[in-house]
């Protein structure tokens, strides 16, 4: 029994089918519960009710980065061990990551308007997320442009590797280019910078909820991709017969 057993599509379909309802239920409970709890938190003395946006903004931003890291890991597994499920999981994750990036940017813009007096600021964090969005778009465009599934998986895998290096490089280049308005990490452990517990616990819950939501969507979308692949294989066999 090893983790590579799940590289077998049949085994993956069976296991993911069993996990899926639980993951979906847990994601629904944690996300809605966390967001409702967040909505009921008291107002911040400085930011007023806008502090409630944090329960969408921070989990989305966290997932936007983590999904790219997951795609990088999946691409590496595909390039090294040639497990098809891995490549399909990377493909399935990309749109979710792009939407998370969009949510982080959109909530940030809406929030920045009253707090900073501007929708957009060329702040290092904001700029890095815009660049991340560009990488997601390029990655998805490359997947949809190549017909042969194995070549597509290979080329997007290589692009994901190079893109990861440049995403990090851009992050620090941007830091050099402009110092920003954005505050530091929201969950910093340094005393004084840390959020009050009133906001912290609902935030943890929504972060868990967003993670479970990603897991659910990833399973659904990977299953879709596996079915599409099988359909294409069956059709190809029929054409030959």
């Amino acid at each position: 029994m090893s983790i590579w057993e799940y590289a077998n599509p049949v085994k993956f379909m069976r296991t993911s089918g069993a996990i899926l309802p639980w993951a979906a239920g847990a994601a629904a409970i944690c996300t809605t519960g966390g967001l409702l709890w967040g909505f009921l938190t008291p107002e911040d003395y400085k930011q007023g009710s806008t502090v409630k946006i944090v329960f969408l903004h921070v989990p989305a931003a966290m997932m936007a980065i983590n999904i790219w890291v997951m795609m990088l890991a999946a691409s590496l597994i595909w390039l090294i061990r040639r497990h098809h499920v891995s490549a399909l999981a990377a493909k399935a994750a990309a749109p979710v990551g792009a939407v998370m990036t969009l949510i982080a940017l959109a909530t940030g813009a809406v929030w920045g308007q009253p707090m900073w007096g501007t929708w957009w600021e060329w702040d290092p964090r904001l700029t890095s997320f815009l660049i991340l969005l560009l990488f997601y778009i390029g990655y998805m465009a490359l997947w949809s442009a190549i017909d042969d599934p194995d070549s597509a998986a290979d080329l997007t895998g290589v692009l994901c590797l190079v893109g990861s290096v440049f995403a990090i490089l851009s992050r620090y280049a941007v830091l050099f280019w402009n110092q920003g308005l954005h505050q530091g990490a929201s969950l910093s452990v340094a005393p004084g910078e840390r959020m009050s517990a009133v906001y912290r616990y609902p935030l943890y819950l929504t972060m868990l909820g967003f993670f479970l939501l990603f897991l659910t969507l990833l399973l659904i979308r990977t299953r879709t991709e596996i079915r599409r692949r099988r359909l294409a294989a069956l059709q190809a066999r029929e054409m030959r017969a």
Partner: protein
Amino acid sequence: MIELGKYAGTVLAAYGVSLALLAGLVWQSIVANARARRDLERQEKNG
């Protein structure tokens, strides 16, 4: 009803946009999955 104060529009807009995006993503995933399953089942029955 929760009192949102003068930033009500801001908060509601942020929640609205985000939830709409998430709902769209979930809906698209489910529809695509259902279609893939339907097509596959039809193909397996015929073939």
